[in-house]
């Protein structure tokens, strides 16, 4: 027995010694990122519609125009050197760069633009609706988009502001793919979709290295990138769903960047040498909505009272510190046309008075669905406490994201706490969601916040939303969106509370990381290590 114990101890000691020299900083030409990437469904830009796949597409593909890494708030030339808009003819004519090659070495051609967009519209995957807004269908797309040498002519159907059209063409599904390579890998008429879920065929600063779902995604630098080769020869995104262990990896120097830390974990890094936290405002707004199919929630006084039952400052400075800021309009701060006024504060007495004046009987008992992720559940609990002070009792119904969305789409919820991020960086993306509803019938499905909550905006609001979409004068257009935001603040069954903030912790030597307002504007190409 004594011998056995000794052997056991010796084996354990030997094992530990054998694995001791483990620390290694990442090399200067490689960026290692710890991130939860299990949201990725596909990486084909024709179907990629998740946060992490958006980041991937932004770094491997280009669009004709884009919000570039150098300034993510300005629409800049990308694969197109210039363009002309003829609003009367509803046409945009692009001139392509002549010095761009795909990762395969194939040169960029006008036919690639036509083919890429035809592919998106024909495949009709999740993000296709962004392009089909322009009146494109599988049947007409090849007439609507034509190429002649380095010139691409784009036609659209509908009364749209030029900026709206350009914003649509800067969106993720408008990415240009190497059609020769893609179609060479077509199987059973899938337009190369299966192949594109394992490979990249873009012009972007990186090409796909390795991708294993919920495991690893690595990018290899494109040395021939037309805006210059990235300093990082490789970017490795290691899947790690747990913030606590991301933090350990960052502190140990095994990763350069940790992207999913909660406020407590961020706070814990304050005194850690060699690590800093960067903050990036995001476009997503967080809100509570009231389904108008629930009788007790149809009185506008309830909506108005609810706006005074959120402890905005308390939540933003407390549990949400560094993760969200107070914002009460549908278009996010930091973008042209955003309404930054925050007229509502936590005032339970005023809320009670509003309900009493309107003759609304309290308490009002209502269920509120919420995604059962840590921050959301805490937010819901805070709302439960503050709403109760005004006579509105919220019963929290937590569920997985898929459960909540299923219920929301079916319009069977009562109240809902969720968030909304624009599909592309044009105010119409959010105005359509919060201030427009063409038809409130159950069978007229729409993915907007208005339809999902069975709310029919006043006719004037609907008309103004469409008028703003068509407005050719840029300044006047922004003024119209400001007015729409004020009107929804006053008249809609939504309580918009916060705008998201992204916090990314990184090693001190990492510079040049760009994290724009959405996942489509996360760029690694300017990253350097000092």
């Amino acid at each position, binding site marked *: *027995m004594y011998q*056995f114990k000794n052997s*056991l101890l010796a084996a354990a000691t030997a*094992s*530990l010694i*054998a*694995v*001791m020299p*483990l*620390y*290694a900083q*990442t090399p200067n030409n490689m960026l*290692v990122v*710890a991130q939860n990437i*299990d949201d*990725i*469904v*596909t990486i084909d830009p024709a179907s990629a*519609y*998740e946060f992490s796949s958006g980041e991937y597409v932004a770094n491997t593909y280009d669009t004709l125009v884009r919000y570039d890494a150098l300034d993510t708030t300005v629409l800049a030339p990308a694969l197109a050197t210039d363009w002309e808009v003829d609003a009367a003819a509803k046409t945009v004519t692009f001139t392509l760069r002549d010095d761009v090659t795909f990762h395969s070495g194939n040169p960029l051609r006008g036919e690639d633009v036509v083919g890429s967009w035809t592919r998106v519209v024909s495949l*009709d*995957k*999740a*993000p*296709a*609706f962004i392009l*089909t807004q322009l009146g494109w269908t599988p049947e007409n797309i090849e007439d609507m988009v034509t190429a002649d040498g380095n010139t691409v002519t784009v036609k659209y159907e509908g009364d749209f502001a030029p900026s709206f059209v350009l914003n649509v063409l800067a969106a993720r599904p408008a990415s240009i793919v190497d059609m020769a390579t893609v179609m060479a890998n077509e199987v059973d008429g899938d337009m190369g979709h299966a192949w594109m*879920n394992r490979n990249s065929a873009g012009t972007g600063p990186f090409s796909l290295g*390795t991708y*294993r*779902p*919920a*495991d*690893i995604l*690595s990018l290899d630098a494109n040395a021939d990138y037309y805006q210059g080769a990235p300093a990082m020869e490789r970017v*490795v995104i*290691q*899947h*790690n*769903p*747990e913030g*606590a*262990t991301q933090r*350990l*990896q960052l*502190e*140990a120097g*095994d*990763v350069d960047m940790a992207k999913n830390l909660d406020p407590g974990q961020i706070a814990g890094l304050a005194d850690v040498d060699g690590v800093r936290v960067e903050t990036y405002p995001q476009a997503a707004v967080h809100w509570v909505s009231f389904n108008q199919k629930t009788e007790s929630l149809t009185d506008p006084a309830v909506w108005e009272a609810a706006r005074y039952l959120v402890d905005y400052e308390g939540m933003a400075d407390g549990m949400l510190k560094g993760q969200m800021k107070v914002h009460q309009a549908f278009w996010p701060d930091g973008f042209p046309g955003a309404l930054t006024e925050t007229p509502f504060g936590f005032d339970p007495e005023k809320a009670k008075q509003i309900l009493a004046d309107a003759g609304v009987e309290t308490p009002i008992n209502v269920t509120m669905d919420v995604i059962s992720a840590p921050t959301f559940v805490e937010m819901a609990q805070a709302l439960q406490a503050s709403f109760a002070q005004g006579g509105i009792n919220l019963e929290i119904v937590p*569920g*997985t994201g*898929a*459960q909540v*969305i*299923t*219920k*929301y*789409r079916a319009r069977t919820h009562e109240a809902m706490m969720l968030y909304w991020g624009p599909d592309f960086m044009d105010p119409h993306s959010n105005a359509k969601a919060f201030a427009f509803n063409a038809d409130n019938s159950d069978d007229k*499905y729409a*993915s907007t916040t208005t339809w999902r909550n069975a709310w029919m905006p006043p006719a004037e609001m609907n008309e103004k939303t469409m008028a703003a979409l068509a407005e050719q004068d840029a300044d006047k257009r922004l003024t119209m969106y400001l007015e729409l935001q004020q009107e929804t603040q006053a008249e809609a069954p939504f309580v918009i509370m916060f705008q998201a903030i992204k916090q990314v912790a990184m090693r001190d030597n990492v510079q040049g990381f760009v994290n724009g307002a959405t996942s489509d504007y996360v760029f690694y190409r300017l990253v350097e290590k000092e």
Partner: protein
Amino acid sequence: MALTEGSGKGRERASLPPWIKTTALTIGSIAMTMLGLLFVTFIIGRVMPIDPVLAIVGERASQSTYDAVFLELGLDKPLVVQFGYYIWDVLHLDFGTSLLNARPVSEDIARVFPATLELATLGIVIGIVIGVPLGVIAAARKGSWIDQVARVLALVGYSMPIFWLGLMGLLIFYGILGWVGGPGRVGIFYVDVVPSVTGMILVDAALDGNWDVFKNAFSHIILPASLLGYFSLAYISRMTRSFMLEQLSAEYITTARVKGMSEWDVIWKHAFKNIRVQLITVIALSYANLLEGSVLTEIIFSWPGIGSYITTALLSADMNAVLGGTVVVGLIFILLNILSDLLYKVFDPRAK
């Protein structure tokens, strides 16, 4: 009379060699078990309040996109028909495509199961190597300090949340001491360095003769495997102790001692020999539980195993992935049962 004749013919037809009957019964039993398992899982998946189409297309896709995927998934057909199609495909070894990553489920399982197999196997080895001797010693020295230590270890193992223990383990052994590798199966510089033959990195590295990769992979697996091993040993040691106590109080043990046999021989050659069959059941159950995948351990250690794969799939109504995973888990239990039966026959002549 007719019945008698019929019975007689039946007896004639049944006069096949016993091993054929046994094999046929076993195969039939496995097939029925798998069918039942799949049916129940399928129904659970379909009655969950989750729309699988939304899991694929997202909440903002157009109605036409939604409708196309709805039809593509065959959701317009009755449940029984959907299940029939699924079984037909499975019989052709087609487990379908995962809704969550658009890849064949068989490919996913081939990727995630070896990760779990490697982790669970090392875990159960740790559990057996420490748990069995600990249980035997605790029983042999009942009431002694080592018995108390075993009791506390088991109690902690039963009651401590694995999530917390995993995080503490990482904090101490990875974050502070730097003795082990961090989350993930292998360090970032060793990813895909050795060709994947079995999908188990330790094995693949050994086959390739790349001992740097082996060492790095070992540094990553040792902590989660020890954690799983600890939870197994808590169970195995307590059960071993209980079985041993029963044996050590038997008359044949007293007789052996009276005859002057050494305590070592009494314990290991007599008492332990008689608990082997029971231990096989305990170990097989522990191993099967580990092979199902420990979701929390996989999350903490970023281990791409079958536990988190099935759980994520279930929460998104990705039924192809869930059913594919269920087939694997079901087969594991069946195979371990068969293995246990075979081992019974080896260790217990009466079972022959």
